[in-house]
């Protein structure tokens, strides 16, 4: 078929749309890694769904004769991606992880490899043909069963904040060993298969490969340190350096392809030997990753999906074979890893978590299967069965991991409570979303601390999973905040050191921001959660989105600051109607007045006409508080009119009286916020029941002689 650029652009566009949409659906609705959705999108575009539901559209979009061009694009992308996977391989991950990691990783390879080869005895006469030798078939089955998807696994570990736990560190070490071992085994299998079909002596291929490996380890690797030094001298990655690196990747890929193992091994090997000590690799990943992951990988998934025809798995017999493949894959990898981890000293829960993580096959399995199909070692039906196995084992990881090692336990291990340190401290948790909002929130938090009490401030940044890239995962990063999380808290921490306030940073990846704010507040025993507000992409509501979730989930005192200008706040207005909803607003406004001399707080007490004079009196408060009593049936009108009198800050209770509730459908919703250009502090106090419970918990904790359960490590 003649090259058709219009068709290729149409194909790539379709693939991109499908991958992003299905990936988003899997991420948001099914809580799966994006890559699982992208893999599924590939299958959806293939004969299994699009070709079945709309054969005309499928034939128009993906005519068989055009797939060669799509394949070429995907292969180039895959070469670069395998280089990125190699870049992630760092021998430092193995240091200090002990012999347990080596034992576990080798058992996690040999067990599924053995079972894969065993099942080959049954499948070879049924799903293969005599153009494939049993040795090649069984070794390939073994290799395909024993692979672990290092990139997907690393992403799941990061997303679930497991990287700092014992399970996380051992799993990463095992996966790194698995990765290099599985690819080496596959290189040998490919060499065996190709040697028989190309009539090239096997020893020649193996000897050539060994010589090549020696060359890149002992000659290319030291030479690459010059590249790293050049980077350090320049302080940035230049286009020339990217060009040289890509050239090296292509040369390596070409050599391994020529040697008779696959081009992908060369790309992976070049990534693995790249120097990892400076930010060179990080910057290189940043340059190459987005285009590769967003554009090229979905094309590869689509190409893999176009080769996957679920129609080939027809009848109960074929489905039984598919089930057997899945059973063997899970039994070998999950079972083998779990037992080995348990024997080497991990608890059953930790071993199970490690086993299910190692069972993640993801993209790496697709790469191996595509090589197998291309070589003719596996038949189209077996390819389809193994693709389904790859998809299922990857998709099952997150839910089963949640079952074995719930996020609650991981979170509590990461953000554990601290032992009581003498007198009880007033604790404020400050969630920070935008880096620029951090210093303002810290200033407000400082002013809200009660006088005469010891206090603690935690700055919390929660990163959504979609925002973590391979480059940002930094699995060997220091144990405090890492990557973009560190950047998000940097302005706040820098401001804290300028003004001499001790702030403890906490950051992790979160799927449920409001729920995690609640948990951090609970575990840290927060007296107040002070969060900022920034205009959302859609809508204007102050109490919508994450704030609405926090109002629902956080049981303690909660304040939302809408910071509209630089302090200091000298004139503060507090509308007051009843003690239930507005108590918290009065408390915080009083503290602001106490902490900043010269501040005037106007307490606007609205009472019903002819009713009792109200429960407040000027005598209750200090000098800085002025009580203004107004009789009116409409407190909101009074508050709105008063808000226009040039105040710096309005402190208001989150109550329907003032139109400050999360529901956007209430009459005059957030009108008070719109009426004035002053900053706004919306306060939702802890309920009296929660407050009583909290006091009781603290009393019993102090009375107990045992240390609190999670006083193990400081994040």
């Amino acid at each position, binding site marked *: 078929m003649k090259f058709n650029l219009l068709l290729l652009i149409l194909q790539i566009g379709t693939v991109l749309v499908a991958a992003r949409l299905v990936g988003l659906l899997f991420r948001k609705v099914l809580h799966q890694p994006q890559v699982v959705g992208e893999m599924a999108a590939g299958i959806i575009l293939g004969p299994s769904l699009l070709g079945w539901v709309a054969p005309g559209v499928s034939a128009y979009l993906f005519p068989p004769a055009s*797939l*060669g061009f799509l*394949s*070429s694009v995907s292969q180039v992308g895959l070469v670069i991606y395998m280089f990125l996977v190699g870049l992630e391989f760092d021998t430092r991950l193995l240091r200090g992880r002990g*012999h*347990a990691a*080596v*034992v576990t990783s*080798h*058992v996690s390879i*040999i*067990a599924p*490899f*053995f079972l894969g*080869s*065993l099942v*080959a*005895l049954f*499948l*070879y*006469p*049924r*799903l*293969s*043909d*005599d*153009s*494939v030798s*049993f*040795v090649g*078939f*069984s*070794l390939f089955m*073994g290799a395909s069963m024993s692979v672990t998807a290092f990139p997907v696994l690393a992403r799941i570990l990061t997303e679930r904040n497991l990287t700092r736990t014992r399970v996380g560190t051992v799993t990463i070490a095992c996966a790194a060993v698995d990765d290099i071992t599985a690819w080496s085994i596959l290189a040998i299998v490919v060499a065996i298969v190709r040697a028989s079909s190309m009539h090239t002596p096997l020893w020649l291929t193996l000897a050539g490969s060994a010589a090549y490996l020696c060359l890149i380890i002992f000659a290319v690797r030291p030479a690459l340190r010059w590249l790293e030094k050049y980077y350090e001298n320049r302080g940035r990655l230049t286009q020339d350096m990217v060009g040289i690196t890509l050239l090296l990747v292509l040369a390596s890929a070409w050599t391994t392809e020529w040697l008779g193992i696959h081009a992908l091994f060369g790309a992976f090997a070049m990534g693995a030997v790249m120097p990892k000590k400076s930010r060179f690799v990080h910057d290189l990943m940043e340059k190459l990753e987005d285009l590769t992951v967003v554009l090229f990988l979905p094309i590869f998934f689509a190409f893999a999906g176009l080769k996957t025809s679920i129609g*080939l798995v027809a009848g109960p017999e074929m489905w039984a074979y598919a089930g057997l493949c899945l059973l063997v894959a899970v039994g070998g990898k999950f079972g083998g890893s779990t*037992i*080995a981890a348990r*024997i*080497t000293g991990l608890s059953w829960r930790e071993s199970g978590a490690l086993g299910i993580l190692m069972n993640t096959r993801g993209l790496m399995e697709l790469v191996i299967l595509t090589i197998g199909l*291309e070589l*003719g070692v596996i*038949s*189209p*039906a*077996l390819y389809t069965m193994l693709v389904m196995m790859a998809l299922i084992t990857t998709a099952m990881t997150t839910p089963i991991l949640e079952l074995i090692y719930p996020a609650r336990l991981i979170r509590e291990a990461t953000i554990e409570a601290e032992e009581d340190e003498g007198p009880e401290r007033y604790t404020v948790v400050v969630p920070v979303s935008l880096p620029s909002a951090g210093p303002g929130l810290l200033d407000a938090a400082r002013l809200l601390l009660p006088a005469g009490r010891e206090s603690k401030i935690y700055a919390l940044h929660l990163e959504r999973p979609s925002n973590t890239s391979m480059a940002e995962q930094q699995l060997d990063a220091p144990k405090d905040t890492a990557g973009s999380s560190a950047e998000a808290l940097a302005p706040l921490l820098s401001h804290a050191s300028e003004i001499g306030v001790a702030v403890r940073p906490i950051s992790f990846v979160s799927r449920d921001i409001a729920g995690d704010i609640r948990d951090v507040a609970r575990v840290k025993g927060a007296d107040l959660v002070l969060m900022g507000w920034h205009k959302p992409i859609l809508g204007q509501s102050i109490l919508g989105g994450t704030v609405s979730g926090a109002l629902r989930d956080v049981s303690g005192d909660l304040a939302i600051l809408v910071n509209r200008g630089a302090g200091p706040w000298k004139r503060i207005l507090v509308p007051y109607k009843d003690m239930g909803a507005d108590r918290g607003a009065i408390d915080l406004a009083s503290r602001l007045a106490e902490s900043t001399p010269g501040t005037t707080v106007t307490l606007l007490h609205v009472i019903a006409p002819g009713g009792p004079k109200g429960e407040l009196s000027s005598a209750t408060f200090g000098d800085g508080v002025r009580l203004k009593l107004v009789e009116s049936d409409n407190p909101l009108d009074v508050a709105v009119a008063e808000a226009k009198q040039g105040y710096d800050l309005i402190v208001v209770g989150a109550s329907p009286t003032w139109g400050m509730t999360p529901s956007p459908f209430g009459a005059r919703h957030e009108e008070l916020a719109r009426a004035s250009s002053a900053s706004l502090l919306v306060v939702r106090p802890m309920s009296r029941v929660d407050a009583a419970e909290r006091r009781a918990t603290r009393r019993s904790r102090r009375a107990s002689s045992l240390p609190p359960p999670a006083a193990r490590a400081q994040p």
Partner: protein
Amino acid sequence: MRHIIKTTVIYLALVTPPFLGLVGIVRFGEGLAAPRSIGGEWQLDDASQKEAAGPCQGLVFDKQPTLKVSQSGLRAELLFADKARTKMSIQIEDQHIIGSGHAHGAGGCDEPLSLDARLEKSGDKAEIVGTLERRGCSSCPVAHFRAGKKPATATP
């Protein structure tokens, strides 16, 4: 030292048996026979091109008188190079190949297509020789065909 010895013993106990088992599997498996390979492209010879296009003019090969076989063990899918991209499901029993499928024929001839053939191999040369017919259609002639295996080309 004791810890290292313990780890080594655990390692050997866990890794050695499956490794030895693997060696046994490979040895044993070498004696297994897989179905004959018929996957790939087959070219109809000149004489049978017209005949294969015969069963009530159901199949037109255009300029590519080829049969494309995608094999998965004992089963395969045969794709004709006609405009309707007719497919047949194939079962392989040793050298015997039987298949069934459907293709609309001229003049309302819609009976199912069936294929009955055998694989003939001599040295490097392989051929499929057999018949293609519409079962149940008395007016449609049985088409005899012979197709030779085309040399494999690089797969994209």
